[in-house]
């Protein structure tokens, strides 16, 4: 009887402890949501009271209203569409060869030795610095923008994929060999799935770089797209309109990361 009572009070203690932990977790979640809201409110307040110059830092509500107006006119969507198409096409154009070459480099050391000095030498060059050459070779059309993105995405994905394959634990290679796996089996059962986690990290990085590159490229050499919207409105000193461009980039960057993270948990159920 007494023992049972003791046991119950022990449960009571742990229950309290558990509730406390839950409350703390909720507080942390609240902090995550509140930090952007806090900054936006502060910005709004400072801008409205002209403590910071509202010409350079228009209040967020005004930016939102501008976003709404620009959306109504429909022009914003054309720019958005153009940028997104460039990103998607350029991304695929870079990622697909990067995965192929990365896998080959990881699996066959002669290929690795052949390609790695080229990659190491080309990687440090900012893609934008190559823009003149890209324009000369591919013209000023859409394709040259896609190529720019493709090049900037290519390097992190190729390097990560190759590293993903070479980092596969040797014991799995031994298992495959001992159980008679041929080259095709080795590729599909060991190299590809084994390198996938690191490869996806490369793709996550590539995605962020693609967004940076397209905006910068559109600022320099384009007459459409989000980067163009930012640059033109800056030149015309239409700062709320410029901020709309920045907000959109932030939104899509966040959105793409979420998509790829979702893809990660779908593709790697074993992690």
């Amino acid at each position, binding site marked *: 009887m007494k023992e049972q009572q003791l046991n119950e009070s022990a449960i009571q203690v742990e229950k309290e402890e558990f509730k406390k932990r839950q409350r703390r977790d909720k507080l942390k979640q609240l902090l995550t949501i509140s930090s952007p809201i806090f900054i936006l409110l502060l910005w709004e307040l400072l801008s409205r009271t002209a403590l910071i110059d509202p010409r350079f830092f228009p209040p967020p509500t005004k930016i939102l209203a501008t976003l709404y107006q620009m959306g109504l006119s429909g022009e914003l969507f054309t720019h958005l569409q153009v940028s997104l198409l460039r990103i998607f096409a350029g991304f695929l154009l870079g990622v697909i060869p990067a995965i192929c070459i990365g896998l080959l480099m990881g699996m066959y050391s002669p290929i690795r030795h052949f390609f790695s000095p080229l990659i190491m030498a080309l990687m440090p060059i900012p893609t934008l610095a190559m823009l003149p050459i890209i324009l000369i070779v591919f013209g000023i059309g859409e394709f040259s923008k896609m190529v720019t993105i493709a090049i900037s995405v290519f390097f992190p994905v190729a390097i990560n994929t190759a590293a993903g394959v070479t980092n596969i*634990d040797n*014991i*799995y290679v*031994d*298992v*495959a*060999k*001992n*159980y*008679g*796996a*041929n080259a095709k*089996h080795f590729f599909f*059962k*060991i190299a590809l*799935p*084994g390198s*996938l986690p690191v490869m996806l990290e490369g793709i996550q990085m590539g995605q962020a770089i693609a967004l940076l590159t397209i905006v910068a490229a559109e600022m320099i050499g384009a007459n459409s797209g989000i980067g163009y919207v930012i640059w033109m409105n800056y030149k015309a000193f239409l700062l709320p309109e410029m901020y709309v461009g920045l907000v959109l980039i932030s939104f899509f960057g966040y959105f793409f990361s979420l998509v790829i993270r979702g893809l990660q948990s779908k593709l*790697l*159920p*074993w*992690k």
Partner: protein
Amino acid sequence: MSSNTKIELDQLTKIFYKRNESVEAIKNISLDIEDGEFVCILGPSGCGKTTLLRILAGLETPSTGDIQIHQSESEKPLQSMVFQERGVIPWMTVEENVAFGLKMRHLPKKEIKERSDYYIKKVGLEKFAKLYPKELSGGMKQRVSIARAFANDPEILLMDEPFAALDEQNKFILQEELLNIWAETKKTVLFITHSIDEAMLLSDRILLMSSQPGQIVKEKKIDLPRPRTMESIRSNEEMAQEFVDIWQHLQKEVQGSRA
């Protein structure tokens, strides 16, 4: 050489050569193992026992000498290895891991399913067949590794310290499970270990190796009746004497390699 010799090793030597420096891992190992025999190779760490096993597993080539594994049926694979628990492939489910060797050999789907199911059940993992290894304990992973090798139905089984990473209790359980499956299939097994208890429990014959260069220096027949249990080994006077004998040999080898 009797007619039912399964494995023949003839003057096997392996040297690792690196920058003007050569290490003799194993030296002149000649050995016959009979069909259905359970042989343990016991030796101090670094004595080349793993190298010997890797040569048999086709993962390493001998510098000189020959190996021969006699084949009874042409479609059977020569050998399969029970790797340590980390050899279970993390991106395949239990089922896929066990069926791995069969799939590599392109057997009909139905047969693959039947055979892998049979051995998954044998090692008591039927409830876990669809899970990934991350959800399994160490002992369960090792069961997957054992099931994978038996399902492949090879001429001989090679085991590289399969239970070294397990805790004592799990080790005893798995050793007995292994003996049960082995008794049913009567495979020829070459088992590497550094545990004297393990070798005495499992094997028909224990081969003692010297440290670098690895040579077989002593042979001990263990003819206790089967099925055996750890209790029966521990309470047997004769075995106790054998234990001390082997212990002293290993002690000498380890100290010898330090000097």
